[in-house]
């Protein structure tokens, strides 16, 4: 287990980071918390010779509420999110999701942006951000762009980022701050476990009917996905057990899990059904 000689850069701004990355090309990688990258480099030494540490860049810091919504810098650690009173109040499901990642030590270093950029199908921060209809801001050589979070994920370990681009921040829109949402993760252990399946749901109840339901599933498709069919089914319906169960079935139909050494396809489907129902029910019961 070793890493080959590398240089270490600490750019002071996002544009400086982008310029550095353009200069170094595929010799370089952005370094966030390193909980994934450093491990990767130890397993595959020699693939990278320049590490560009982005965790101190000012634009990538901070948890701020504004008229637009709640902005979280991509370099904010899971621990910071969990401890932030603003996050606990306005986006509790994201705090809950952050708590399920790894262990205390992982969460101290790991960044929420890093989780999204690493882009594994089981990314634990993704479903809870997706059901709150988050958008992400990216800075590259051509400037800044903001896209819905669903468009950020392209495939396993593949985002829409160009090599020179850097994920700067995540914004949860104002209308969804405080929206009742729940996150559940199933793993082989309670700690330091990769998700077999993870699910988030969010909804409002207006005049006794479900309004703006959002359901997101992770680890059951090449990327985290929204269950649009179940969402449009639930919109405007009564929050009855029957409807919630039906939505859960639809989630199962949308999910495309695989069998691997951690769990079988059929078990994952069962997990999707139960966890979708439970998160929906929790949303309904906790309005």
């Amino acid at each position: 287990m070793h890493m080959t000689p590398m240089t270490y850069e600490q750019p002071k701004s996002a544009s400086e980071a982008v310029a550095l990355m353009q200069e170094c090309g595929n010799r370089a990688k952005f370094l966030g918390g390193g909980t994934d990258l450093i491990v990767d480099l130890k397993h595959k030494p020699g693939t990278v010779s320049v590490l560009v540490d982005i965790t101190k860049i000012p634009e990538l810091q901070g948890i701020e509420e504004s008229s637009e919504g709640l902005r979280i810098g991509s370099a904010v650690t899971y621990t910071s999110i969990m401890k932030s009173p603003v996050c606990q109040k306005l986006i509790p499901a994201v705090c809950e999701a952050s708590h399920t990642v790894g262990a205390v030590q992982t969460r101290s270093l790991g960044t929420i942006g890093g989780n999204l950029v690493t882009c594994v199908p089981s990314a634990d921060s993704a479903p809870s951000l997706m059901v709150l209809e988050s958008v992400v801001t990216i800075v590259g050589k051509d400037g800044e762009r903001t896209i819905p979070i669903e468009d950020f994920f392209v495939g396993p370990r593949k985002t829409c980022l160009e090599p020179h681009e850097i994920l700067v921040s995540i914004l949860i829109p104002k209308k969804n701050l405080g929206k009742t949402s729940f996150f559940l993760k199933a793993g082989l252990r309670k700690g330091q476990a990769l998700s077999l399946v993870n699910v988030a749901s969010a909804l409002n109840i207006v005049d006794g009917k479900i309004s703006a339901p959002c359901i997101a599933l992770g680890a059951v498709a090449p990327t985290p996905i929204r269950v649009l069919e179940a969402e449009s089914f639930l919109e405007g319906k009564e929050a009855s057990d029957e409807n919630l169960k039906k939505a859960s079935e639809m989630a199962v139909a949308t999910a495309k899990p695989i069998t691997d050494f951690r769990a079988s396809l059929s078990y994952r489907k069962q997990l999707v059904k139960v966890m979708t129902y439970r998160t929906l029910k929790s949303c309904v019961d906790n309005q």
Partner: protein
Amino acid sequence: MATKPTQDLDQKTLVIEDTESALNAPVRVKEAHPIIYPLSLPETEERKATPAVGQSASRPDARLHGLGQTKYIDDIKFPNMIYAKVLRSAKAHAKIISIDTSEAEAMPGVYATLTGKEIPTNTFGPTFQDQPVLSDTVVRHRGDGVAAVAAVSEQVAQEALKKIKVVYEDLPVILDPEEALKDEVLIHPPKSNIYTSKVIKKGDVEKGLAESDHIFTNRYKTQFQEHVPIEPHASIALWDGNGRVTLWSSLGRITLGREDMSRTLNLPQSKIRMIGTIVGGNFGGKNEITNEPILALLSKKTGRPVKCTYTREDEFVSSTIRHPFIMDFTTGVNKEGKILARKIKMILDGGAYCSWTGTTIGKGSILAAGPYNIDNLHVESYAVYTNKTTTGAMRGFGAPQVCFAYESQMDEIAKTLGIDPLEIRLRNAFREGSLSPTSQTLHSVVVEESLLQAAEAFGWNRS
């Protein structure tokens, strides 16, 4: 120069006064976190109590562990020490056609390389010596060491490993122990793959089975298990000018280790010193030498102390693991669930080398019948080579595997006959004076009492 340390506890400063110096200025050292602790750090009350017998005492190493002062092998360093790493086989079973270390040797920072040919006696093993220190003609599992490098840092050593070119010629790979039994592909030719066996006979098992009201036949299999000591294997070798080598090692059995060193290096034991330090977890996996002869030879070649620590990957691939067992239990019982006869056949997946299989098969076979009175018993066990990780000692030495089998079958029998699982065990359990599977008279037997106490403790209701 006379100095007198005084401790000014109120001020929280440690003052060392140089009473003879012309300057006579006290040196104030902030009282925080010195590396060496004065004896004034209080001993616990329990450790001072007399009589000691009957007191609850703390472990003598507990203090050092808590302070982080325990020196494990990797915490020890010597001046001019260099680092070694071992290249593991790329194949599960193959002939080695050639090993070319020239490019590695030419790397800046590399002091020396080592291959199996350079080891005076390239075999070792606690039971019989079938394992090479470094494979030079054939590799039998992915964990086999093929070459070693000593370099100025671990980073350089691991980069150098990549430059070693090994040419292999594939041999058929045997992974299934039952396949290995057939002896179609020999892993240690000309020896049979069945490298040790054991038979235990007591009474007349066929007669017992014939007299039984019910016969149960079940197969049970157990899996690999790796010790995963949190401290990886580690050793340091260094020589002195009198031609004596000292090994600091995480090895548990140092006298055995010294014998192995003497044998592999062709060196009299008087020239070998083995120092075993506090080990960060052994569980059976650190009971035989691993890299020690390699490090001794690298140290000799380079004239420097050489340290090697296993990576966690080495631990899983190369260090010994628990034997998987395949166990066929045929048990005859009467209507009341009393065992009249038991016939057991066991196959131990013996890995690529023997290691501690001798002890495992012995213990496993004797204990296979369970702590039950069985007059008619036949146990037949075989350990076979496979092209998988060497199976060696791991806490239990065969006992956990057979326990899984005989207790599972007991539950099967109880369920089929409609007898309470506790009751059926009480009907069969050893008592004072019972005979063991090998007809040893047993004393101080507390099986029944233990079962009843345990049942009481977790609320099992006896009807």
